[in-house]
């Protein structure tokens, strides 16, 4: 298990479109990818689960991968979040 912290910076927060971008990346992973906020966690592959995590702008989250082999997915997701989903 490897994790990386990130802060949601885009104005609209983690909404359907930004979640869809994460889910697309997570679909490439061979093992579990998760977004964790406080004690709640959501499967990065499910847009609905991600939206339900409720992350407005400024939310601190942790991206977790179950298996080190998905390192590239982890990096891509945290990069995407850092860049504010290109919004």
């Amino acid at each position, binding site marked *: 298990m490897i994790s990386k912290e990130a802060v949601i910076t885009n104005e609209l*927060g*983690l909404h359907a479109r930004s979640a869809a971008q994460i*889910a*697309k990346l997570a679909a490439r992973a061979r093992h579990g990818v998760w977004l964790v906020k406080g004690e709640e966690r959501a*499967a990065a592959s499910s*847009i*609905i689960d991600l*939206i339900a995590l*409720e992350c*407005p702008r400024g939310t601190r989250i942790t991206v977790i991968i179950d298996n080190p082999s998905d390192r590239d997915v982890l990096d891509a997701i945290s990069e995407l979040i850092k860049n504010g989903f290109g919004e």
Partner: protein
Amino acid sequence: MPDKTAQEIVLEGINASPGICIGKAYLVDKEGVDVISRYPIPKAQVTNELKRFKAAVKKSRDELRAIIENMPDDFRQQTSILETQEVLIKDKLLYGKTIAVIEQECVNAEWALKKVVSHLKSIFQEMADPYLRERASDVVNLADRIMRNLVGAKQLNIGKIDKRVILVGRDLSPAETSQIRLERIKGFITDKGGKTSHTGIIARTLEIPAVVATGDATATIKNDDLIILDGITGTVIIHPSEKTLVKYEQRRLRYERQKAAINRRSRLPVETLDGKSVKVLGNIELPEEVVAVINYGGDGIGLYRTEFQYMSRPCFPDEDELYDKYSDVVQVMAPKPVTIRTLDINGDKAVSAENGFNEANPALGLRGIRYCLQRPDVFRTQLRAILRAAVIGNVRIMFPMVATQREVIQAKEALKEAAGSLAQEGVPFSEKFEIGVLVEIPSAVIMADAIAEEADFFSIGTNDLIQYTLAIDRTNQNVAHLFRPLDPAILRMLKHITDVAHQKNINVSICGEMASYPIHIPILLGLGMDEMSMNPQAIPTIKQMIRSIKISDTKPLVEEALKLRSAEKVFALLRDTYSDVLSEFNRTDDGADKVFKEKIRIKAPGGERRASNRGLPRFVGK
């Protein structure tokens, strides 16, 4: 826009469900548009049903693709919404879940989809951030598209599909309300009905505002009229003026903000100031009420009353029907526990299937476990349904009206026998669940140690326990004021039950109305209740109360209370000790304030939620 030519009309009715909404009227006609019905799919046909669902999904996806491709460039913003929907369509929480429901419950795809979407909506509705909350509409729009392809409806006017309406009808029958696609409904207005009518219960459960008993709303309101519905005061305004609209829009926002603030905190786990965590669960009667328990942040179902399926019908429900109802609740709550109380009916009017029964004193008659032990056929059907539902999630079973240890032993034998019959038929079931006793008869309190030998947990039904201990029929106006949960006799009983439970190392909880009053909470915590279960609507308030208390303070408080000689003195002790905390509740919005004032009173309210013709005629369930 408000209609300048029309005059503002105000109708007054009964405020059956709180909340404010503004929208267009939709009169329910006999055809009942927007109705999705549920029907079982034979096991062998499930694969076909799945195919039908997948075909509808594919068709929806193709439609989206076509729209995207034909979209002019200056609608880029729109395109990205549609592209999101395109990805969303295969999301496991929508697509996967619907398939799972079809497979597991053997129901039609429309119903499965509707169920999944309502669940998702309940998650989104709790969100504090208004923008994110609005995103739920993406999911709903998408589900609408799939639904349309599923039912093979003609390409309906999309504008019509997308708008949410205020439903206006004469009176809505249970069948109608259960079939309406509720995610389309902003509010209910009916000509007839009352607070305890089916529409009222459903509306409260789903937290949709409703005004009932307006008299002639259907005659006054026309389709597409702009309407303000105020479910707090019971007012309906037709053709509101600009000024009225602005006023109500502000009130609506204020109300929803406050509700969201309370509900948001309610979703969090709850612990006392000194870190003792407490479970707060909900009591339900209809499967639909699970939504309210989830919305209010309940940690499970502490009491699932099962009488409803037996009411007002000519015959007893069959096993499959009961299984359907139970598995609905169990599945939605999983992995949180669902405590199913076995049938608590007497032979009186309550069961229309059972005739020729007239007891002079049903309270002391053939009811609860006594009835079930005398009617092994009826009992067995229910037990088998529960055993089967236990496969799906976290079930607990609890026997009501237990007076002796022998009854528990007999009930457990009946359960074993039911399990045996299922095993023989090769029907899947699980008997790995906790078996509890509803402690509500004084003899069960006195014999608690003996009963504990046969039980995994105690749940205290204070409504009946108080009634039987103090010999008070609280629906009798002459003595109702003597119905006092804080009477020293009751406190000693509670103390005895909790002491025995702790000695015998079994869980003890309370599912009586007593637990829904903030002022009782310090006593209940001090007695060491492991769980409390209540009306879903009370959960946020009680959680807030628990968060304001130190468990270490409550132990000496209970000691002190036990020395007192009257309910008044116990009440005064609690009021004085927790005056600061209790006054906190008074500062919340006017709606909650009203609720709280009612709840702080020492006397139980005279009227009980849905007392009429739902539970026992003279007795209201716990």
